[in-house]
Each structure stands twice: as C-alpha cells, then as structure tokens.
C-alpha cells in the first residue's frame, strides 16, 4: 500500500501513534474501497461479458463464465439477423444530442455573460428562474407539447426533440457557464480594453482560454442528458425520428433468446455516454450539481 506516499502529507503533524495498526487499517480500508468499486462495476462487467457470449451461453444457468467469446450479439445489433439497421436511430440520437448541445451553448454562453461579467440587475433572480424550470418535472408539460406538435405536424420530427432537449439542458448550462465565466479576470479584461483591444480580441485572448474547458464540460453534460432521454422520445417520435434509447427497448422479444443481443445493443448505445462521461469526469459533479459544487 502507499502509506509511504501518503505518510508525509497526512501524518506530518500527527504524532506517530500505533503506526503498525494504523498502517494495517489503512490497507484494509483501501482494500474495502477496491471491493466496493468492483461490486458496483460488476453488473456492467457482466453486461459486457454477456454481450460477447453466444445466446445459448448467455442464458446458461449456472452462468458459463468461460464460454467462447463471439461478436454474434454485436452483428445482430447491426442488423445481421433482422436486416434492421441501427444507424437511423443512432443518427437521430446524434442529431438530437449534437444539435441541441450546439443550441444550448449558443443560448447559454451569452446569457451566462450577462449574468457574470456584465451582470444585469437582479441577476440572481434570473439564475434562480432558470434553476426552478429544471426542478419542475418535464412530464408536466408533456401533453400540451404533444397536442401542439400534433396540430403543427411536428410529431415524429427530430427537430422537435432538439427544441425540447435544449430546454431541458439550458438551465444546467447557464449555471455551469456562469460559474466558469465568473473566473474570467475582469481587471485584465478592463485593462485590455483601455489599451484599445476590441471586443473580438477580448473574447479570443482573455475570455476564451479561461472558458474553453468549461464550454467543453457543459457540452459533454448536455450531450449525455440528451442522449439518455426516453420519455419524450417515446411519446413524440415514431418510426422516422425514433432515437437510440427507444430503439433499444425494441430488442426485447417475446420469442427466442435475446440476452446477448440486448447486452450488445446496450453496450453500443452506452458507449458515447461512457466516453463523454469519463472525459468530463472532473467536471461531472459541477454540472450535475448545477455549478454549486466545484
């Protein structure tokens, strides 16, 4: 264990009481943390393993851990058996997630600017208005949205989801972006404009370097939430604009074995979120807590 590394920092000022026992406790707690990590990871690992098994082996009881690995489930996901391609729903999901993320950033960044660098009057009230919209369950607006979309001929249209996902993520983005923009050094900014720098220069030279990581994190979180959404996608789309989560629910069949196939599909559809989430790991908390925790 790494007591040698941890020692100087954490025990620098504390008297070395019972060093042997403390070292052993430290080791045991580290082991316990590892054990918890593995327990939480286990269902996911099982999903990946099952996705790589044949359908017969996947449905074995007791589980057949060392069964031969195959990509059969993944081939099925890509339509080898049924001829149904997963690409239309995946492209729909990508369109909805990316377009709404772009829209979110376009709306949130200026708004956050007006809430931090040059704040409007009562800017905290505005912040809490944004937050309160996030606290109201989306399901409450589902029916009117459905009726309006139906009358406007927008049902089964991916751009309807783009608008809804934008409204879903905008409050989070405004809060996150504000907390990043608040770190912009205003004194330097003012000095630069006194020295004759125009707005473009200030934006690219002073604001952008500080804010770019924040924009990236905001984009990733907005992407994750849009990609995951099921309820609106299910109610408001059909065969044309169905998204990946809706497509995934269709893999469960009443006949025959489907476990490996479903697991393969679940892994494939989760991959973009896992990638985005691990990339934004450090900023994840800040986004999920709406910028309240750093």
């Amino acid at each position, binding site marked *: *264990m*790494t007591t040698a590394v941890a020692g100087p920092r954490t025990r620098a*000022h*504390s008297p070395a009481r019972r060093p042997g026992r403390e070292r052993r406790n430290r080791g045991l*707690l*580290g082991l316990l*943390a590892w054990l*918890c*990590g593995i327990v939480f*990871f286990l*269902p996911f690992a099982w*999903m990946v393993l*099952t996705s790589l098994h044949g359908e017969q082996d996947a449905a*074995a*009881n*007791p589980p057949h851990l060392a069964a031969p690995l195959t990509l059969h489930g993944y081939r099925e996901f890509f339509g080898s058996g049924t001829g149904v391609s997963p690409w239309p729903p995946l492209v729909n999901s990508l369109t909805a997630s990316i377009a709404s993320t772009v829209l979110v950033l376009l*709306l949130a960044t*200026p708004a956050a600017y*007006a809430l931090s660098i040059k704040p*409007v009057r009562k*800017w*905290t009230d*505005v912040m809490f*208005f944004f937050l*309160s*919209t996030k*606290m109201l*369950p*989306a*399901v*409450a*607006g*589902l*029916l*009117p949205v459905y009726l*309006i979309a139906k009358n406007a001929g927008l049902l089964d249209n991916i751009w309807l989801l783009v608008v809804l996902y*934008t409204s879903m993520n905008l409050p989070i983005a*405004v809060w996150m972006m504000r907390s990043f923009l608040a770190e912009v050094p205003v004194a330097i900014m003012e000095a630069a404009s006194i020295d004759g720098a125009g707005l473009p220069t200030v934006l690219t030279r002073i604001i952008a370097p500080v804010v770019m990581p924040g924009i990236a994190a905001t984009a990733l979180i907005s992407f*994750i939430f849009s990609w*995951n959404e*099921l*309820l609106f996608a299910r*109610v408001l789309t059909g065969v044309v604009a169905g998204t990946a*989560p809706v497509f995934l*629910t269709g893999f469960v069949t009443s006949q025959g074995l*489907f*476990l490996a196939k*479903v*697991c393969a599909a*679940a892994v494939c*559809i*989760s991959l973009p979120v896992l990638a985005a989430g*691990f990339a934004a*790991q450090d900023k*994840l*908390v800040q986004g999920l*807590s*709406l910028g*309240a*925790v750093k």
Partner: protein
Amino acid sequence: MSTPSTTSSPSRWLRAPDALRRGPSVASAGPPRPRPRGAWARRAPLLPALVFMIVVTQLPFVGTLVISFMRWNALDPGNKGFAGLSNYTTEFTDPQLRSSLTTTVVLTASVVLVSLALGLGLALLLDRRFRGRGLVRTLLITPFLVVPVASALLWKHALYNAEYGLLNGSLSWVWSLFGSHNPPQPDWLSQSPKLAVEASLIWQWTPFMMLILLAGLQSRPTDVVEAARVDGATTWQVFRYLTFPHLRRYLELAALLGTVYVVQNFDAVFTLTSGGLGTANLPYAVYSTFYQAHDYGQASAEGVIVVVLSIIVATFALRTVSSLFREETR
C-alpha cells in the same frame, strides 16, 4: 445575494454583484459611468435564453393547468368540457391513482436515502489515499454513465431474470458447490417488484451522491483537521465534530438534487415492470393515463400534482443551492 438597497446611482447598482464578488478593489476601480442605454445592452445577451425557456417550459405548463380542469378524453372527443375539480377528486379517490402517489414518495425516499448513505460511505473511503484510487473512482461512476434504459434492461434481463439472470445463476452455482441440485430460484421482479426497481435505481444514483459528497469532503479545510489530530482527537471525533458539520450542506444538496431527479424517473419503472405490481409512480401514471388511456384531463391533473410535489422539494433545494451559491460568490 442581498440587493444593495443602500446604493442609489444606477451604475453602482449594476456593478454591485461585481463588487461583492471581487472585493472592494475592483468596485472602486472606475468612476461611476452613467449609461442610459446600458441596461438594455446588458440584458440583450440574456434575452434569447430567457424567452426560449419561458416559451418552451412555462407555456406548456399553463396548458396543462387549463386542461387539468377539463373533461377531455381523446377516445371520446364529443364529450369535452369544463370539469371543475373532478379530475383532482378522481385522482385522490381512485385507489390505483392514489397508490401511484404513495409509490412516488416511497420510491423516491428510499432510493435517495439508501444511495445517500452508500454514497457517503464510498466518499469517505475514496477520500483517503490508496493505490489505484483514480481507477476505483472510475469503476464507481460507471453505473451512472450507463444509459438509463440500458441499465434498466440489464437489471431486468441479465440480473433479475428467473431462468437465466445472474442472481439466480449465482444461487445455482453456490448451491452446486455444496452438491445441491435444487437451489432456490426466486422470480425477483414479481416477488419484490418495488425492491427490484429500487435496487436498480440505487445502483445508478449512488455514484451521483458519492461524487457530490467527495467534492464536499475534499473542500474541507485540512488545517483544522490536522490541528484537531495534533490535539488528540479520534477519527470519530473528527468526523462527528468537523467533517459532518462541513458535509451537512453537501448532504442536503445531494439529497435534494437526487430527489429532483428521482421523482421524475420514468425509464426504470417503464422498462422493469411497465408500471405493474404497484410500481407505477406519478410520471409513469401521467404517461399511461395520457398515452394509453388517452384521458387528457386526468393526465393533466396528475401532471399538476407532480409539479406541486416537486415545488415543495424544489423550494428546499433552491434554498440549499442558494446558500452554497452565496458563499461561492461572496
């Protein structure tokens, strides 16, 4: 943030947040600059986002509110009209709908409390240094990054399934170790449906709680803790009198945000049990009343009730966020 009522000049008014955030040095940096059109120039970047949010989220809710007082079933379009409070009285007298109300409360409370407790334990474990801490953290947040529908399908078919799920598979394996060919094979989803839904959600939400609490633990001032240790405080005393009071607001925040998200849960209930066996929560009830029974009036009344419940939670959540927020911007 308190509004600076003592200041009178409009430009100082506008600069107040800056002054509070960055301290007096910046506030006194420039002379007061009266700008007649400044206010609107400042507001302009904010307006698109604000208008968008009002149109897309607030107006539909007004629609829901109006429809909730109407008699309107899409399967019976001729019989449409004002219904007064009858949708609400149905909601509170129909046993099935009333059970969706209690299910929401029980489901949310149990998921939030259990994952909060587990998250606290994990955050405390991860707050100390050990080999591979970063990797363990990554392992722990994985459940949160699986697409919720995928996770629900995983639990339903790969874990809970009575014939080939991992839970019963493991039971068979353990029993076979002792030479028994007759292991118990419970049907988890139909025997304890609520627990099954809760377990899958707890798996998903514990990482969320852990991340917030870990951030809280790591923002704790270390010098105070070390001083306490020098003075001979035990680990328990440090936790009880230093860590816990510091962590309290983070616990509140995690619980409230978790509640806000879990109250709205639809994916797990929809996928695992399709709302059967007493697991239908309010979002699922709204969905099925609207999408399957086509009773628009009733569905809207349910929507309004979800909102009222959420406002109660949100009021506390907003207060907690605002106290953290005020501290940060101070």
